């Protein structure tokens, strides 16, 4: 199977709720959505953010938007004003996830 960077198939936006980051990824074409559903599992996202995400990862499907939403618990160094991070609100986690390599035969 061909390896592709997720950024070729999806765009994304991320934000925060306390110490939880959310990353929403959106299929660039409708036919990419099933590939995202198949490849970008909660387990893979947890593994991708190893060392950053210290809690669980939850995944929600939004087929109407061709999108997946991930909640990355305990991922923002305490979150909000407690965090010492340059990005305490996880605003750059969107493209951090889009660095992931996935199996995608034909695009």
């Amino acid at each position, binding site marked *: 199977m061909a390896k592709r960077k997720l950024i070729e198939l999806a765009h994304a936006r991320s934000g925060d709720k306390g110490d939880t980051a959310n990353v929403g990824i959106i299929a660039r074409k409708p036919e990419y959505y099933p590939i995202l559903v198949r490849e970008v599992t909660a387990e893979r996202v947890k593994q991708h953010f190893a060392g950053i995400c210290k809690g669980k990862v939850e995944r929600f499907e939004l087929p109407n938007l061709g999108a997946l939403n991930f909640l990355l618990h305990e991922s923002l160094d305490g979150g*909000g004003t407690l965090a010492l991070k340059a990005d305490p609100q996880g605003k750059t986690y969107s493209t951090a996830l889009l660095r992931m390599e996935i199996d995608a035969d034909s695009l």
Partner: protein
Amino acid sequence: MIRIANGQGFWGDSLEAPVNQVRRGPIDYLTLDYLAEITMSILQKQRSRDPRAGYARDFVEMIARVLPDLVERRIRVIANAGGVNPAACRDAVLGVAKRQGIDIRVATVAGDDIMDRLDQLIQRGIELRNMDTGEPLSAIRAQVQSANVYFGAFPVADALARGAQIVITGRCTDTGLAMAPMIHEFGWKADDWDKLAAGTIAGHTVECGAQCTGGNCQVDWDTIPDMADIGYPIIEAEPDGTFAITKHAGTGGRVTVASIKEQLLYEMGDPHEYITPDCVADFTTIHLEQTGADRVRFSGIRGRPATEFYKVSISYSAGFKAIGSLVYAWPDAYKKARAADQILRQRLERLGLRFEAMRSEFVGANGCHGIAAAEPSPEVEPQLAEVVLRFGVRSENRAAVERFTKELAPLVLNGPPVVTGLGGGRPKVEEIVAYWPALIPKHEVTPEVGVWPNEN
């Protein structure tokens, strides 16, 4: 159809955006968000020093600029600019109107401030447990600086029904600010769950200003036209709960299904239940359609009954922090920054300083994406033009944080070579005001709506 514009996505957003929304095309309502979760504690401190302070002064200055236009164009304004002192904000706005010789009716929505009732609530068994950690508020009661309930759209709609041209609220949901005109104009009821969910999703779409009209948009970002003159969003709302998102003709930016989808996912939790005081909205029911240039139509939205609780936003002091940085230049910039990090840690250790948290990031190498970005490759690493060592500490002990701030500068002369970036002087010690989200039964609090000049 009514047009509801957003002119402010957060306190600190463009000062020109609300003025442009008023002057560059037709709108019926202008809504503005000034309160971040932490803002309330800053405003609380201001009020403790001056009983006439504690609200968003930017709002009053904005009103002074556009009041004649608002009156001439019959535009009504809704803003959570009241902070912890909506009455003082109202008086300042009425003062502006008086000086300009304009008669207006200004309403306040208050009653959200429960700071003075915390002990009594806790005694009665309302524990205000932290929604994330489950801890009861009693654990940090002594450090609490502000406590405000998030009200929804209905008190604001009530103020509009009573003839207010400007509605100033304390803590109120961003989505409620935008939905209130729909409830008022279309006569939506408190159990019209599908319509309330639609109005809520309209509010969520515009609550971050230009973040839905091409700002911070990843799809073809470099072809988005005239970002310097980016248009802020406008909801074109229909009585049946359908609506379109657009922006004024002639402004920059771009409204597409892609730009809208990105904003819909911003700060999203479980998309099946987006909970507000007004309803529970289901984001998986949204149908989007591009119906024209810079115009996206929403339909099909479903909602469910509201919960029995209001969310409470509590702020509390949580120690001190300081963050500083040093810039290391080619060659071996990353290697030098890492060496400096180790030296700094050893020195802090020798001083016997203890911190609850200590963090170093290497901006330019992998500062934003950390381990997901992995290390720079062996070919790239020695060639990086510069790497910023960003180092922060946090502690309950102010003296320890203060001592840390004096350990960064010496590294310029007594550490790895070719380093700069101390122009700003020693890092500042900041008091940390942290956020404690909790729930309170709705029957414990009542919104207080008042209209001035006094209706009676």
